[in-house]
């Protein structure tokens, strides 16, 4: 029986991978949840591409301010030491290599680090890219946070991306519900696997060729309830 993490636990795992003092951008969707799991006492400075450094979650019960939102247009709050700036300055931070880590979602991650996360095929609706392409090349580390397999079981980590790319060879680390996989020069290296998972099974559930690190660890997280299903 594989003890996969739920999405909140994956957010916790990502948050715990980030060093004190890092400047971190969180993509819209699952990644924004990382903000809720920063380890007690660790100072991480979160960047929001709409011109914010030093955001934190809105306090329980606090009044949201429509002028204080994150990249997902959700209300936030600020740490002392935070700053506001305009969009060109904000993306100078991103594109100029000043962001230590960005955390993005993915439709597909290629074995070579290619990322596809902005455009699904066969859709009539308008394309939208936001800041994903800026972050893919601009951030020093590109962390991906995603389910290991889609609802149909198809792997998100593939030999080669088939969807339109967000960026080429940009992904540095992938956090899924069952594994933490790092991109090395010679391929994808499994750093952590969920309890009860055999490497062969992980490989089977993955499109890219994997290698198990000698010092691999068990992927664990504290007991955190999964996110509630959002009404649509």
């Amino acid at each position, binding site marked *: 029986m594989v003890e996969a993490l739920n999405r909140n636990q994956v957010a916790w795992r990502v948050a715990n991978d980030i060093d004190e003092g890092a400047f971190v951008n969180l993509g819209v969707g699952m990644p924004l949840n990382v903000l809720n799991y920063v380890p007690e006492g660790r100072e991480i400075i979160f960047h929001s591409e709409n011109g914010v450094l030093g955001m934190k979650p809105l306090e329980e019960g606090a009044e949201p301010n429509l002028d204080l939102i994150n990249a997902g247009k959700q209300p936030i709050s600020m740490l002392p030491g935070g700053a506001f700036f*305009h*969009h060109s300055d904000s993306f100078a931070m991103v594109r100029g290599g000043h962001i230590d880590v960005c955390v993005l979602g993915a439709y597909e991650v290629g074995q070579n680090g290619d990322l596809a996360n902005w455009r699904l095929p066969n859709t009539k*609706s308008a394309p939208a890219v936001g800041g994903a392409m800026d972050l893919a090349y601009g951030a020093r580390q590109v962390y991906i946070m995603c389910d290991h397999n889609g609802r149909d079981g198809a792997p998100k980590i593939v030999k080669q991306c088939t969807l339109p790319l967000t960026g080429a060879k940009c992904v540095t680390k992938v956090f899924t519900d069952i594994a933490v996989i790092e991109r090395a020069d010679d391929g994808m290296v499994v750093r952590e696997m969920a309890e009860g998972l055999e490497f062969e099974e992980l490989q089977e559930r993955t499109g890219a060729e994997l290698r198990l690190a000698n010092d691999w660890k068990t992927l664990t997280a504290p007991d955190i309830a999964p996110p509630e299903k959002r009404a649509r």
Partner: protein
Amino acid sequence: MINKICQGIEDAVAGIEDGAVILVGGFGNAGEPIALLNALAARKPRELTIVSNNAGSGDEGIGQLILGGCVKKFICSFPRVTGADAFDKMYEEGLLELELTPQGTLAERIRAAGAGIPGFYTRTSVDTPLAEGKEVREFAGLDYVLEEAIYGDVALVKAAVGDRWGNLTYTMSSRNFNPVMAMGAKITIAQVGEIVDLGGIEPEQVITPSIFVDKVVEVEA
């Protein structure tokens, strides 16, 4: 005496012509100059190009321009936001052109127009469909895409405080695209929550200096 203050919102948007390229500040609803956009929509302009991060939501602001059939083309990074129904419907019917540009490239292209830079190179979009048809050039072993400036005819921005010279400040994250848009257009029109006397904004705290602003109108928040 210099006085950029307009007495009414209609005066503020007077003179905007059909076919104009309009830069619109804001990110989602934060910093969106709703009152100016509604007043512009009331003039029933035609064939506008709207340059903004999102393509509006609901039936106010950019949404009102779309519903009024005023918009020919969007240049934006993320048209689809919750409630962007007006845009979605017309786009799917093929009634709106869309030039999709990454968010950082969008901001930089507009700043470039304001800074006398017709083109610049960036890593963003290299090896993606958004680089198709664009020049790619190598610097120090890496590929970069040539992006060109976006020149606005008019910028519509929202600020917290303004004065009669046109100096502006913003509240928190509603600053976003507003100072950038103010740089990139021939004429910049600002709706502000409060007009103060000259000197009411400390010179170190001015975010958009007067030189980038042509008209200021007070709008109740």
